[in-house]
Each structure stands twice: as C-alpha cells, then as structure tokens.
C-alpha cells in the first residue's frame, strides 16, 4: 500500500477539471505549466480544497472519500505543507514559528536546519534561503506523514537557488516520508525527485524517472517540457531509417520507425555546433544563420534554423559565434526521437 494514495480525485477548476490518480512512496515531483492544477493537488491533499470526488489515503488512513462524504479538517491530517511564499507568521519569531506546530522544543530543528542564530529574528527580516529553511523546519516539526512542497525554489534568486537545490535534495532523501513537490521547472523536478509526473490542464500525461522522461517522452508536450526541440514533418521509410521532410524542406533522419505526419524531439545537449561542416557519421546537418544566443544558467542556448542547442560559455568563446553568422548544427539519427506519429499533429496540443 502506498504511503500516500490519490485515487481518481476530481477537482473542478475554472476551465477544466483536475483528475489524478497517484501513489506517492518516495519523492515525486509534478511539473507543468502555470495553471495546470499543480497547487490544487497539494491543497486537496492538505484539506484546504475539497475535491468533487475520489479518495485520498495516507498509510491506510482515509483523509478524503467523496463517496462516503469523509473529509478530514486540515489540522487533522498529518501533512507538512511548505507554501510557495513560505507563509511564515510575520508576528512570530523563527523559534515561535517552528514551535507553532508542536508543543515540542524547536531546538532540534534549529540545529538541524542551521538556523539557531536566527531563532529570535522575525520572518520579514530573513533572506529567501533562510525563510525556506524556517518553512521546512516548521513543516517537519509537525512530524508529518507526508511532506508537500509548492514551488520550493521559485521564490529564490538564481544565485541562491543552486545551493538550496542541492541542500533540499539531500534533505528530501533523508526524510523517510513520501514527498510530493510541484514546480514549473523540469530541471528542478529532475534534481529533487526520483520520479517526475508531467501534468497539463489537470491531467497527468506521463510519470517516470527524469531519465526515462527525457529518453522516451510519451508525447510532444512532455518532450517540449523536458527541454527538447520539436520538429514537425512528414516521414518516409528508407533503408531501415525514417527520413522526415520538415516544413522548411530540410530532411532529418531518425532511427525510430514512423510514417506520415510526425513530430520529432531532439535534445539541445545532443546537438553539436560548429562553424565548418563536420566530417563524421552524424546524419543530420542543418546549415543556417544563428538566430539567437541566450544565457540559461551556466549554459548558452544557441538557435540555428528550427533547432536550439546548448553549449558552455567556453565553447561559445572558442567557436566565436555571433548572431546572424552561418553555422552548422549536427545531431545523430539515434538521438532524434519520434514523439508523435501517424495522424495529423499540431505540436504542443497533441495528446496522443
């Protein structure tokens, strides 16, 4: 039996309904665009929103059962919820915030989260990273059976984020309780969770390990969400491979089997950028002027024709690339995956 189980819960939202069945045993992340219903999942588990139907159980204890009209009040569910903005009580000190949940002493938590020096500070005076640690300490001081995190890294600036992400990763591993976190950032999800579920318009599209999601996305949305380039084209079999003619006339080869309208996914890190045509076995070559160069964290994203590639800042300097300059993007047929096939497809909205 799963520690936390959601069975066919349905929550009507403004333009669609959230529908979800999910077992949470380890650390699971739900990722999806804003407004996909991610926060609603957490609120339903915590008892702050009431689903229309379905069942929520924790270690066999029924927290919600639509059919039997059971819905435990939030204070009767043993759940630790870390809010997106942390929701620390501004009128209480750090120590009082942590002690709010339990009659317990806060000392253990002050030490464990290295916030003892802040115990008398009030939340408005803390930095983003400090607030997050206090919020985590407060949620865990409740001794919850399940930990819920709402966009745990979104309130932090890019500089703080990397460090906090590593800390959080270690913390979640050592908790021994199921963790469900929601984020709009696939990278954060992949870094923090064992399994990642992609949720769109209230519907779970695919749930798998981050590696599996990248290697075998179920559909084009999952592929694009995990960061892949998506190319629409028309595929034909040839020599045991599939040749796909893109809308702009470029032909791309894939090792996957497909015919007719297809959507291809290529990951930016599988694409090599060069100034001159490469002399190797790479089957796919796009030669076009560079459309854009953007910095994403510690990587550089370069857009050539229909695809974007990611390289390091050092590579960019070595290659001496500039916007408008012609360059080559090359990638293997084996790294080019078919994510939608066989019928008329329209990129992101396809939900095969």
């Amino acid at each position: 039996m799963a520690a936390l189980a959601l069975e066919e819960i349905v929550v009507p939202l403004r333009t669609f309904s959230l529908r979800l069945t999910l077992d949470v045993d380890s650390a699971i992340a739900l990722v999806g665009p804003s407004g996909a219903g991610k926060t609603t999942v957490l609120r339903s588990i915590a008892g702050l929103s009431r689903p229309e139907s379905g069942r929520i159980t924790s270690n066999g204890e029924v927290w919600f059962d639509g059919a039997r009209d059971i819905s435990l009040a939030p204070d009767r569910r043993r759940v630790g919820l870390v809010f997106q903005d942390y929701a620390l009580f501004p009128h209480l000190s750090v120590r009082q915030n942590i002690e709010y949940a339990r009659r317990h002493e806060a000392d253990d938590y002050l030490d464990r989260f290295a916030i003892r020096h802040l115990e008398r500070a009030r939340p408005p005076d803390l930095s983003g990273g400090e607030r997050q640690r206090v919020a985590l300490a407060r949620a865990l001081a409740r001794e919850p059976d399940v930990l819920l995190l709402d966009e745990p890294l979104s309130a932090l600036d890019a500089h703080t984020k990397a460090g906090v992400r590593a800390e959080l990763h270690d913390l979640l591993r050592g908790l021994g309780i199921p963790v469900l976190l929601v984020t709009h950032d696939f990278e954060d999800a992949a870094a923090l969770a064992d399994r990642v579920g992609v949720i769109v318009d209230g519907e779970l599209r695919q749930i798998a390990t981050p590696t599996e999601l990248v290697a075998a996305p179920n559909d084009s949305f999952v592929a694009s969400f995990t960061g892949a380039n998506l190319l629409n084209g028309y595929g034909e079999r040839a020599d045991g491979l599939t040749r796909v003619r893109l809308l702009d006339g470029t032909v791309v080869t894939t090792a996957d089997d497909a015919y007719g309208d297809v959507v291809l996914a290529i990951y930016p890190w599988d694409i090599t950028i060069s100034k001159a045509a490469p002399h190797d076995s790479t089957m796919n070559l796009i030669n076009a002027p560079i459309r854009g160069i953007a910095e994403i964290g510690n990587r550089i994203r370069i857009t050539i024709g229909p695809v974007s590639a990611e390289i390091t800042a050092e590579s960019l300097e070595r290659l001496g690339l500039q916007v408008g300059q012609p360059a080559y993007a090359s990638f293997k047929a084996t790294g080019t995956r078919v994510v939608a096939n066989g019928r008329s497809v329209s990129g992101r909205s396809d939900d095969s």
Partner: protein
Amino acid sequence: MKRTLLSCLITAVAIVTLLFLALPVIAIFAHTTPAHLVDQLSNPVVRDAFVVSLKTSVIAQALIVLFGTPTAYLLATRRFPGHAVAVTLVELPLVLPPAVAGIALLAAFGRLGLLGSTLDALGITLPFTQTAVTIAVAYVASPLYIRQAIAAFEATDPNLTAASRTLGAGPTRTFFRVVLPLAQGGLIAGLALSFARGLGEFGATIMFAGSLQRVTQTLPLAIYAEFDQNFDATLAMSGVLVLISVALLLGLRIGLTWQRSPSKRSLYLFGPSASG
C-alpha cells in the same frame, strides 16, 4: 523658477488649511486661563456629564467590540447571498443624520415603537435612560469599528490561516494566534475612531435619551445645555473632549508605530494597510 512659485503656493495653501484646522482648538484654551478651566472641572454639571459620558462610552465600546468583531470577521471571510446588503447595513449609521438615527431608535425601541410593547411586557423602558444613551452611542459609532475591522481581517493573508491549519491548529486557535494578532493594529485603530465618535455623539442621544443631568446628559449635551448659562463650563468640557481626542489620536499613532512589523504598517487611520 516656475517650480519654486508653485511650491511656494502649495506651502501657503497648506499653511492656511492647517491654521483653519488648528485655530478653533487653540481658541478653546486661549479664551481663559488654564487654572480657571481646571476650576470648572469641579462644577457638578461638568463632573456628572463626564461620568455619564465615560460610563456609557465604555459600555457601548465593549458591546461594539464584542458583537462587531465576529460580525466583521464573517463579512470579511465569507461571501454569501446578501453580503452586500449586510455591509450596507453596517455602514448605514455612518451616513444617517444623527437626529434621524435618534428618531429611528425611538421608532424601534420607544414605548410606541416596533418593539415597544414587547419591551413593555418585559417591564423594560429604554427611552430617556442611561441604557438609551449606550444604545445610541453603540448604534452611531459601531460602523467606524466594524468597517475598520473588516478591512483588517480582509488584509490578513489567507495563506497564513491555511498554514496554521496544516500545522495542526483548529479554527479557534488559528483565529486567536494568527488572525487576531495580525489584525489587531486595524482593530485598535477602529476602536479609537469609534470611541472618539461615540464620545461626541449628540443628535441621536438627545432624541432617544434626552438630556437629564446625572442620567443621560453626556459631555456634548451638557456643553449645549450650559452654553448660554456658564460659558466657562462649556469651555472646560470642550477642553476635556479635545484632550481626550488628541490623546486617542496620539496613543493610536504610537501604538501603530510600535507594532511588531512596522515595515508593513500604515500610520494613517484610514489606510487600508493599517492592519498589515
């Protein structure tokens, strides 16, 4: 050049405004010597009026807080059919001419009023008693507290109440440990305004409670009654009221500045963020 002219003009207008507002208050104390004013405080009319005012005000404000706070919380946190009507009802005494409020109270609780026969059967007579003064003050002053309280409750972050619930606190504990402390600045501000308004109540009181020395004659009523007989006594009573009002305002400012998260608090009584 143009700019300096404009700023001079603005400064001049502001000075005129401030003088206009300050002059009458200064005049009260400038008319006679302070010693003479203090003398007048032993005048039985003044003393009786002071006691009546204090007693009725304290009871009325206690009732306003007791009944107004839950009402304000309900109106701030729930949306129900008739919500707008309820809010209008709360605000009505604020715009009602006080004399009309007095007549309305008579029509409701007077001997020939709506509830007159019921009260009569119970042996209760309200008009022209001290209870009537309290009722008139509570009726007229309550909107100032309730409005401010609604704003204060609405300004408390719903995520904080949600957080409290997920941390194992029930609705009651959440209210007293989270909602009330966060709203208290706004509640105190509302109470100060309501107190000041109640203390100055005149129209509704004289209609509903009359002006009987030692029973229903409050300070404003006594000022009116003594006006053509003992001008010094009226000045003394006016001075007392001015001092109380100033003390209320100052206390309020200090109280709000002293609040725990000063960064989020407004020093203005009617500011929407007075509650943080």
